[in-house]
């Protein structure tokens, strides 16, 4: 992992990809037009994330965290700079190409879940599997829901589930296709402490078990610290990077 920052080595600012980097951002700018003139949301971000690494993105509101995540997901296009994920150059992919890329490589969890309200839990989780042509999308979806402890809620609609349950469905949906990269935008922001804790445990459990690369936006300093590294953004730029402490999983707590 390298960060293009005054304090870091310049060897990685050349843009050349390191062998095990799954995410490579090189001088990414994003400018959006607004009534009051153009707004520079991202102002030259360079960032590499290694395979299997968990990175916490922190920073005050308006620092560009969510926009950066959108860029990583291919849902927002950078104005300049380069974005490579899993070896793919986003600037060479059109909208459909990006969709296919997400299908194959990326899972996303949002703060406000973004489940399809008119689909049951099972159907929501099955969607990416179906799209990918999975042999048994509903079997796999049920399995994933079991994993997040929702085996008894398969046929419930999102409106019939609590916030925590909805986020567990969203998580199951995000990881159902075994993505290499899991992006999460304040996944606990809409949940109470205990429920949020459960979700985080689940996420780190999956990250560990499957070796998924994870980029996690959060306001929660403790949670950020649980990642391998913490990247702090301010005004669309990387302010600093610090190593995290790593996550102590519940089973570790018990056994340790």
């Amino acid at each position, binding site marked *: 992992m390298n960060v293009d920052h005054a304090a870091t080595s310049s060897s990685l600012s050349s843009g050349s990809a390191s062998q095990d980097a799954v995410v490579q951002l090189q001088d990414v700018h994003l400018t959006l037009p607004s009534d009051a003139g153009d707004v520079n949301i991202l102002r030259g971000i360079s960032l590499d994330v290694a395979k299997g690494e968990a990175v916490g993105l922190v920073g005050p509101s308006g620092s560009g965290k*969510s*926009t950066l995540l*959108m860029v990583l*997901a291919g*849902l*927002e296009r950078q104005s300049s700079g380069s974005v490579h994920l899993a070896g793919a150059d986003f600037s060479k992919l059109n*909208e*459909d190409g990006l*969709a*296919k*890329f*997400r*299908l*194959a490589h*990326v899972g*996303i969890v*949002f703060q*406000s879940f*973004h*489940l*399809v*309200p*008119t*689909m049951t839990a099972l*159907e929501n989780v099955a*969607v*990416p599997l*179906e*799209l*990918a*042509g999975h042999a048994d*999308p*509903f079997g796999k979806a049920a399995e994933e829901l079991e994993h997040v402890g929702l085996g008894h809620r398969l046929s419930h*609609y*999102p*409106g*019939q589930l609590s916030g925590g349950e909805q986020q567990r469905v969203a998580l199951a*949906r995000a990881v159902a*296709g075994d993505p290499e990269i899991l992006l999460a935008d304040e996944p606990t922001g809409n949940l109470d402490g205990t429920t949020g804790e459960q979700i985080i445990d689940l996420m780190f459990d999956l990250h560990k078990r499957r070796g998924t690369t994870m980029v996690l936006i959060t306001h929660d300093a403790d949670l950020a610290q649980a990642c391998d590294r913490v990247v702090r953004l301010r005004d669309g730029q990387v302010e600093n990077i610090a190593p995290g402490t790593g996550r102590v999983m519940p089973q570790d707590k018990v056994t340790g």
Partner: protein
Amino acid sequence: MARSWTLATSYARRELRGGLAGFRVFLACLTLGVAAIAGVGSVSSALVEGLSQEGQTILGGDVALRLAHREATPEEFAYISQGTRVTKNAEMRAMAQAPRTDERTLIELKSVDGLYPLYGDVTLNPQMDLADALAKKEGRFGVAVEPNLMDRLNAQVGDILKIGELDVELRAVIEHEPDRVGGGLALGPRVFVNDAAMAETGLIRQGSLVQFFYRIQMPEDARTNGAVAAWVDDLREALPDAGWRIQDRSDSAPSVRRFVERVALFLSLVGLTALVVGGVGVGNAVNSYLEGKREVIATFKCLGAPGTLIFQMYLVQVMALAIVGVVLGLLLGSIIPFVVQQVAGDMIPIPTRFALYMGPLVLAGAYGLLTALAFAIWPLARAREIPASSLFRDLITPTRRWPRVPYILATGFSLLGLVGLAVGLTEERLFAIWFVVGAAASFVILRLTAVGFMALAKRAPRIRVPELRLAIANLHRPGAATSSVVLSLGLGLTLLVAVSLIDGNISQQVSDELPDRAPSFFFVDIGPDQVDGFEALVRAVDGVHEFNRVPMLRGKITDVAGTASENLSVPPNVKWALQGDRGITYSREMPEGSTLVRGDWWPQDYSGKMLVSLSEELAAGFGVGPGDEITVNVLGRNLTAEIANTREIDWTTVGINFVLVFSPGVLESAPHTFLATVSMDAGEEAALQRSVTRAYPNITSVRVKEALEAVNSMVEDFALAVRAISMVTLVAGVLVLGGAMAAGHRRRVYDAVVLKVLGATRGRVLTAYLYEYALLGFGTAIIASAAGGLVAWLVITQVMDARWTFLPGTLVATVVGAAVLTIVLGLAGTWQALSAKAAPVLRAE
């Protein structure tokens, strides 16, 4: 209670400040339906009013008397011409031939005297006086003809025409004949001659099928409906046995008026169907409006507002909008007659009085408001019932609770009000009832099928193609538009399919099947002295397969089982038999195509009291049977015969058959002519017609093919009008469909974005929507085709008693058309959803 309404109204006013977004479809549905009904009503009022205002012009006099076969006797003429002006016209069908081009055609010949016309003007081209155009000049009479005669004979002004035995000069083309509407179905173009010329044609012989009209103009002070009616009463009393058909200015063209009124009734019922289809859109709009108001309702409830206040508050808003829609519809509807006048004024063959008619507008307005009520009360009452807490979850767990009884009753009363207006305000009550029953049944069937459709989609096995599975799932998801789309689009389609199939069947009968079974020619006015020679001539022509001839007279039924026919009250299906005169015949054997129902046929050598065989339909309608007596006026003589038997007649054979067949005897000695039918190879028809006209100029030949073409083109014109109005219903259905699409738009944008986030390409999202709309369109079309087919089958086989022909082409066209329409509209509505950028949508949630 009053305070509650005041409060509700003031809250409603505050809420309406927020604008009318989401009510476009609501307004469009009401406006369209109300405009259609108001338009149809206004146009038909203009026509009926025109008929009644111009009564004397259409009739050609204040009173018109019609006699078959004979002229008025000197005594009769003396009576009717006392203090009045009388013009006499003889009208008959005859043949005209143009020696220059050697073409011939059937014509509607009319002789006029110097007084004609009493009302209105005849306009000719080149402009000249009618009497002048017809006068004898240089030893030759003139004729004025309708323009289409020129085409048929390939003739021009100045040509010599041969009519009967007389050569006449074609002097002018008729541009306007004031009393044209009053005449019956025209099989050929009108030709005017004067009295003297008519006499010289040799066409008027004893028994020939000529009708004499006496059109009477009252003195100026007696030209009121009342005075005319009194004069007619006196006439009936003074000359009870004349056997004439009497018409007066108060109802100059009853059959035209009846036709206009029936068509208007049918079209307004279709308009009402459109309104009811639009009602589904009204209900949907109210539903989704309330959906958006859930928080407001919840807040009001939290603040202690009772359910009744909530109901009233939104009822006031909805009805205020309904009034806007109705007023717009009325404005549009009242303009329609003027548009019709501008666009097609010249093509309308009857006089019109275009103006603002309040009656139809009030009626259309009432229909509009009742429809809005009927469809709005339900969702309003449900919103009032739902506790604030569950308001937020209705999309996922639809509340199955029914509204309270008073609201259900209010909905029921509004619907009853609609039916009551539709049925109560017409004389054709039975027809209106059947229409309402049919529409209601279709409504229920479509609603049930929609439910079944959704249940089926829900139970469908999981399909491996994710786009298709998504589409099927979208059909039955909570909040899906399936039900209202199937209902509204389906009702319009059902009507269109029914109309198309009925029209198609009639056309099929008239243009394809009838000619196969029908004879090639009818020949009329064959004199008794000509009949043998005529038969020999026909049989000598190549290609003749069959020749039949029967004696024919015309007579008017004046008395049935001791009751004068004007005092008889009979069901509508046999009324025609008492209006004017009927063709009658006599025979020793029972005519072909008849089946004896009651009584016995008379023996071959019967000679005794005059007997008559009556069609079973008439006998049943008159309530008579064998043993009863019936009196018929023939040539001014009343002949009374005992009913010997009744027959079921198969009219579809188009052979010769009569509702009244008398035993030989008295009628044999009355002056009469013969009617003959000839079946032959189509290729030789022209040759036969040529040789008959040459040998017997007075014999009129009706080429069945041409007559059927004339009938068919009338049927086609009528069907076109019906189909055009049916389209209004379909447009209403499309509006509802569009409304449903718009209501689901936000959801679709969101769904599309989430699917794209999960890795679906635009193509795959599009495919899923395509499948969904195709399923919806095809499903609806198939259901509607079945329902429409059933209606058409019932009408053809049960009402019209005709043979049913299945027309797969019509059905396929409907199904494919409807599916394409749904797909195109659906995709048009979804396109925006597909291209929505993900980030803003995700941020907004």
